[in-house]
């Protein structure tokens, strides 16, 4: 039995030791400012540009289309607010979905107060944005569509290429929040690829505090952070050199090993789904059965939704870290629910889900252990209904 099992890779990933090792020199001796003209600075500039190329390669992009930010959240803010501010004289309508990350939804709310109109698309019960609903929402003044590549709660992958084509037909740009999908799904940079893509390092076995926005050549954005003109004048502040180096190397590792890692995670995911749905009475899968992120399971257990917090704590006590949206919590009063509610789950089910997300450092032994522990742990919970009721 492993001491501790981490099954919350959608929340964050551990830094790959190879990435950490690559970052260390830039936390110690190689401390230069990339904007400095001397050799110490030039060394820093060299590694920043190398990392930019590594991130671009994983996106199928050119290095001069990558703007480093502090996070995926900042990249999302930059994409939406930067676009609107660069077109301040125009009437702007944005289309997004009801299940986006708060860094998109709250930014849209912010923009709505600034005379931008926003349409929030509903999703299917398995969490997909239907191309027809996007088609119907497009207006002559629609300038930007922002739909996430894959959802962080349900794990569902969106039909991005189809959605991009619709946006193109109507002359709108397409942004995608690819924070969960980056390094797991292929990006090709082709004609039906998004114009703006937000990514983050810490979901990719890189460090926290570094993200990036892909900005297709020719797209006009305004800067949100003003200062020294770094990042093509789009994101002032001295570059986070160790973070950028780590991000670049994490992207390089992901690019080289993506196929085998993805196939392994898909295989484990499907094994776990099959086992749990087959053996645990009342269990159900939330989201699409296979159009979902490789290591991502979102599960519910009928009659036990209200007790998910206890499940989480019991699993935690057993050394297994998972995630749940069930907390009746003053810390996170509404977290996760809006995504699952938008998918048509009632408020109780929307909070009573268990999210298990696998990653690079998990093993078959850990999967087996979890599958053994889970039914026993569920048996310790207090069902909403009596035994005779639930067995009817």
């Amino acid at each position: 039995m492993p001491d501790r099992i981490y099954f919350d890779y959608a929340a964050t990933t551990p830094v790959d030791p190879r990435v950490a090792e690559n970052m260390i020199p830039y936390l110690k001796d190689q401390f230069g400012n990339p904007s400095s003209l001397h050799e110490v600075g030039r060394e820093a500039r060299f590694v920043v540009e190398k990392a930019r190329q590594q991130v671009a390669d994983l996106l199928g992009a050119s290095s001069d289309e990558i703007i480093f930010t502090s996070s995926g959240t900042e990249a999302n803010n930059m994409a939406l607010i930067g676009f609107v501010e660069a077109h301040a004289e125009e009437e702007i309508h944005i289309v997004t979905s009801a299940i986006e990350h708060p860094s998109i939804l709250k930014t849209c709310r912010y923009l709505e107060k600034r005379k931008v109109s926003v349409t929030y698309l509903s999703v299917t019960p398995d969490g997909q944005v239907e191309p027809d609903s996007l088609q119907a929402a497009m207006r002559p003044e629609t300038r930007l569509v922002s739909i996430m590549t894959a959802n962080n709660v349900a794990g569902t992958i969106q039909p991005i290429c189809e959605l991009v084509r619709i946006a193109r037909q109507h002359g709108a740009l397409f942004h995608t929040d690819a924070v969960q999908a980056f390094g797991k799904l292929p990006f090709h940079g082709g004609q039906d690829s998004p114009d703006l893509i937000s990514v983050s390092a810490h979901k990719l076995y890189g460090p926290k505090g570094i993200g990036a926005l892909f900005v297709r050549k020719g797209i006009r954005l305004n800067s949100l952070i003003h200062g020294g003109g770094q990042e093509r004048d789009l994101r002032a502040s001295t570059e986070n050199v160790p973070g950028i180096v780590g991000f670049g190397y994490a992207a390089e590792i992901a690019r080289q090993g993506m196929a085998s890692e993805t196939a392994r995670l898909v295989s484990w995911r499907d094994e776990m789904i099959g086992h749990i749905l087959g053996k645990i009475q009342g269990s159900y899968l939330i989201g699409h059965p296979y159009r979902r992120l490789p290591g991502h399971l979102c599960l519910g257990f009928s009659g036990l939704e209200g007790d998910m917090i206890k499940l989480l704590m019991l699993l935690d006590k057993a050394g297994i870290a998972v995630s749940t949206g069930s907390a009746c919590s003053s810390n996170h009063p509404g977290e996760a629910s809006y995504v699952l509610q938008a998918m048509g789950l009632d408020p109780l089910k929307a909070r009573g889900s268990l999210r298990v997300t696998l990653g690079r450092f998990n093993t078959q032994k850990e999967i087996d252990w979890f599958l053994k522990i889970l039914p026993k742990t569920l048996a310790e919970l207090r069902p909403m209904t009596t035994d005779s009721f639930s067995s009817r």
Partner: protein
Amino acid sequence: MTVSDLPGLNCGLCGYRTCAEMAEQLPMKPELLKRCLPMSEHRERSFETKPFSVPSPKKDCGACSVACAPEKTDGVKWKDSLGREFDFYLEHFPEDPGPREIIIPHNPMITREMEIQRGDILIGRPLGMSCGCPITHCGVVMEVDKRTGVIVWCVTGPLQPRQHGFKDVGYYIAEGYEGLIKQTRCEPKIGMRYYFQPQLCMLQWRHSGLVNYLNRLKDGYQVRLEGLWIG
């Protein structure tokens, strides 16, 4: 279908490392093809050029719960997540770690048997009579009445129990709430029963209760509600 018909991205999303590996399996398992996500993404789709309707930017379009979630400051809708009306929001005291509740375990003896005391972290579920909420609650004990078994606690959420452990009281009855009214659409009166919305109720279901203590403050009311029901 041969390997040359597949996208050749070798992305692994179908569960096979390469398109060639998948192609080998296809004759036996043709249903695997739908698992090729890049292929389904790239399939040709003819978009009719029918004129599209322009949806009005109405807030109550019903398209999603996010865009139309009740605003808590401007434009309060006074409806809970099930569309039922209520009269005020109940907020917790700012100095408290969470909403203050007066509870009694279904077996009040366990307050003594488990030696529950101020500062303990408890979990339990309000069952049946009074607020029969389906959610397990977590909280910190503020006061204990060992004679009657009544406990005053502040509901805090799961982080503390996860970090520090907890005592499980099983089922309990929520006897009363204490808190602040800062947003109301009526003048609350003592002795009257109201529908109200606990600000941090995760289900955002309205509750009802009898006001049996009311103290007017400069920016609202300090209130105690008893005889609680959900709905």
